[in-house]
């Protein structure tokens, strides 16, 4: 298996781990972590496949991923501020329909 | 000649890293673990950097490597201080406790 393929498949793995975490865990901070991991997986797919171009990798996906990283940190910051407000207002760290377990 | 010296230096660095990591895993409390990690790894990185400097193409690269070592030592010292302080504040036990020793309650 070639290096780009290996990393791209790892990216798929990270995406699915993130998706699993997002759906299954109730704590909102875990959901935010899960989304970040899923995002990293997508970025890994983008950059890994850019390595297929021989000597020098394709710079366009690199630029896209840098854009993506900044967007991701912005989204995370917003999510965290929202989480703090939500936690302060309700005293809880999960959404209403996630109360299946203690 | 330079090449083999470089390899030897890197190998020595690795030994220190392994020792530091072993200490991190095996030592009983926060303070001794910090001790192992910060001391051994700084020395290990020093050897590693020395070895890599011999491989560097230009003086600039060599100096940059040296700068990295200095920075890591500074950061390590600062971080070690902070972790130890936090552990003291939260009264983590000093002796043979099997507490996992994170600076958090």
């Amino acid at each position: 298996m070639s290096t780009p393929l290996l990393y791209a498949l790892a990216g798929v793995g990270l995406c699915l781990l993130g998706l699993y975490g997002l759906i299954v865990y109730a704590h909102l901070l875990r959901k935010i972590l899960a989304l970040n991991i899923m995002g990293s997986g997508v970025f890994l797919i983008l950059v890994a496949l850019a390595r297929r171009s021989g000597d020098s990798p394709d710079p366009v996906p690199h630029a896209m991923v840098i854009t993506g990283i900044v967007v991701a940190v912005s989204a995370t910051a917003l999510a965290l501020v929202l989480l703090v407000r939500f936690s302060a207002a309700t005293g809880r760290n999960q959404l209403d329909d996630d109360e299946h377990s203690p | 000649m330079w090449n083999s010296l470089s390899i030897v230096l890197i190998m020595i660095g690795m030994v220190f890293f392994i020792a530091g990591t072993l200490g991190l895993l095996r030592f009983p409390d926060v303070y001794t673990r910090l001790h192992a990690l910060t001391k051994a790894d700084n020395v290990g990185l020093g050897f590693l950097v020395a070895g890599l400097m011999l491989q560097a193409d230009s003086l600039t690269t060599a100096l940059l490597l040296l700068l990295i070592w200095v920075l890591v030592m500074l950061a390590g010292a600062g971080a070690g201080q902070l972790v130890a302080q936090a552990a003291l504040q939260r009264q983590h036990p000093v002796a043979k406790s099997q507490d996992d020793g994170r600076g958090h309650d």
Partner: protein
Amino acid sequence: MIEASGTPLPWIVWVILLPLIGAMLCFLWPRQGKTLGLLTALATLLAVIALYFQLLDGGVIRYAVGGWGAPLGIALYADGLSMLMLLMSALVGVGVSLYALGYFKHSPDNPAGFWPLWLLMWTGLNGLFVAGDIFNLYVTLELLGLSAVALVALAASRDALGGAMRYLFVSLLGSLCYLIGVALLYHAYGTVDIALLGTLVERNPATHVALGLMVVAMLLKSALFPLHFWLPPAHASAPAPVSALLSALVVKASFYLLLRLWFDVFSTVSMDLGMVLGVLGAAAIVWGSVLALRQTRLKLLVAYSTVAQLGYLFLPFALLSPLAWQGGVYFVLSHALAKAAMFMAAGNILAFGGHDRIADLDRVAQRLPITMTAFCLAGVSLMGLPPSGGFIAKWLLLDAALSHDQWGWAVMMMIGGLLAAAYVFKVVGFAFTQADAPHDAQPVSPFMEWSALALAVCAILLGLNAHYPLELLAIGGPVTFVSPSP
């Protein structure tokens, strides 16, 4: 097709830059937020109108940002469909801006963030409508989604914070799914330009997976049944002007993007998915309407009505005729105007009585006649009664269904119309009766009442001037949009 380089003012750029500049100014001088925000809204409206005339003169506009052109650079692209969306946003945007002038004067909701966030959202909307590049679309999609979430959270109630949180997760998940699709397409074809992709795309696994992911992402963001769970809490708990923006524009943006992908990128790939989308749309009409009927709170009722109405947008995917597509796009326009007006009216009623329990509306019809007129006119359009825009849209859809003897879809639309009538009349009925416990009333700003009425009247007028939008839609539209004779 013209190159817009020679013209001194490429309006396609200014419809994006103006709201962005306005947002920065509003952030710099928060005390002048209202003035600056309103000026920006008017300037953006003028820029959109200028672009409209440019489009009428020269046809489809393609603009190479940075002068590079695809595949290296990013292209902006405007055709009749994008223009309709831009005009719709501008109209609703100005209406909501006027409404917000009155709303934040008395509301406990935090007004400081509204203007810059709303203008950034407008930047995202306009950027999305004129984007010709699927990665650029990802960035605009994030700009739009994050600003929408922040706007919902302005209400700062428990419900709003929870609704915003859920909305944020859905929005980010959708964007990531979309981005995987972008990654697959880029690595399969070496470009992210929509026009180029349209010529290159062929049937292979990567294309199909990208199509699937992108479609699911857009369905999630446009809340098609059964992925609608996040919409009612977010739309119902937001401040009224924000609810209007979300229901009128934000969900339509992802629907627009779906159309773009469907026709301009994946047109050569199998359309088997269409039937699935149509069936989900029909299910959304029934399910959303039934839930709307069962609500006891006015804003939740209006939000579930959005779930139901969004279902109609997906019927053309199964009907597959030019008439149906025209009907679908027409539905987007008429629903945007009507639903914005309806949420604004609901906001007035909430501000007036301090609550939105339907059973306790307490003669609101006599006490807020302008607002109730707006609500009823918007309701006429939602039900699809003549002469409203909603009537034309449904008529086009029905015609498309009946001319191909697809009776099932027609029956679905009839049921949807009846249910819509039921939930609208439920509200209207209580608006005329006296509640057991009369409540004290707060004054409602005339800005709020008249802007709601203005948008509702626009929704009706849309039905009287049906040929303008349809002619505009034909400019540069995909072949299937141009009908032989309407």
